[in-house]
């Protein structure tokens, strides 16, 4: 998958002290850590402790990873284990009343973590692909995605385009997004057939 080589590249750069690569790893995986913390229903304070432990261990792990591409899997394992321990400690601390819906089997937990990791990777790829769109596309899509929908008339005025042009432009921008090399391997077969780049 295209994303794997990117992760490996980021890990290799980060282990050489490249701050930008490390920042990208943080941006990419912090939402994942948050998602797992939420699954284990940790308090805000416990979440922060988990994130701290995971990143402390991650920076130490950088140098000893045999396969840089294995970083996400390693991170997922450490995150899940930290969350589980923290949730169990919270349950003991709070006298058993703390609700933890983790009477699931280890296999189910591992599957859940795998799905969340996949989702975090997918969303990171979407953000990277979006960042590469032309400014006008990004602007239009952002206006269309607002929580409180903006009227087409208003959007047209803001972007100095015709109301009738919004729909087709949206379609073209999304098509362009779909064809981004960042999304290779994430989207359906028709997207895989487009272009040849995959280095993200």
């Amino acid at each position: 998958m295209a994303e794997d080589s990117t992760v490996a590249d980021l890990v290799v750069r980060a282990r050489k002290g490249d701050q930008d690569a490390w920042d990208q790893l943080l941006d990419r995986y912090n939402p994942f850590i948050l998602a797992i913390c939420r699954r284990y229903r940790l308090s805000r304070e416990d979440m922060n402790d988990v994130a701290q432990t995971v990143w402390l261990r991650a920076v130490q792990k950088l140098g000893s990873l045999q396969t840089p591409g294995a970083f996400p899997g390693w991170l997922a394992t450490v995150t899940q284990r930290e969350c589980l321990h923290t949730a169990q400690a919270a349950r003991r601390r709070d006298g058993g009343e703390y609700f933890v819906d983790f009477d699931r089997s280890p296999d189910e937990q591992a599957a859940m973590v795998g799905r969340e990791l996949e989702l975090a990777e997918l969303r990171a790829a979407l953000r990277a692909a979006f960042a590469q769109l032309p400014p006008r596309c990004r602007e239009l899509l952002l206006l269309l995605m607002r929580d409180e929908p903006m009227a087409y008339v208003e959007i047209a005025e803001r972007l100095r385009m015709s109301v009738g042009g919004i729909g087709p432009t949206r379609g073209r921008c999304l098509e362009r997004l779909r064809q981004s090399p960042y999304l290779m391997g994430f989207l359906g077969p028709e997207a895989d057939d487009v272009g040849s780049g995959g280095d993200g």
Partner: protein
Amino acid sequence: MWGAAAMDDQKPGWDDDELMAELALALRAPGEVPLEFAEAGQLAFTWLSIDDELAELTYDSAYDGDRAGTLTRDESAPLRALTYSSPELTFELEITDEAVHGQIVPCQVLDIQVLTLSGEELVVTTDQVGCFTLRPIPRTPFYLRCHTAVGIDVVTNWIAI
């Protein structure tokens, strides 16, 4: 759910509305992450110094055997013992309720930097037999770094107590 679908071999294509919905979620995700997550990641990275010799955790009484485990919790008894070893230097640490008592081996007089995750930095000097004390115990994880007589910089892993 898309997270599940993305793992299947039969990947569905997205229609425009689905793609917009996923994109909105993707763009919103970073804003939901507590600022502390990024800060913790940033501070952790300050440890990385590729030229230093790493002293790795080789013994932790909390996990390895009972060297300190049978001691009672009186004033001076160590509650936890940790060893960080590198080819050049070993740090032996004993953690009590109120201090970290350390010794470097081979013993020598030198300055040890204590760098905490909260950004504090202090220096302690070892005595003739290589002993030093950190009191109070740093509130956040920390690491030790020193420059040996033969000119090698040795750094421990992050130490979380």
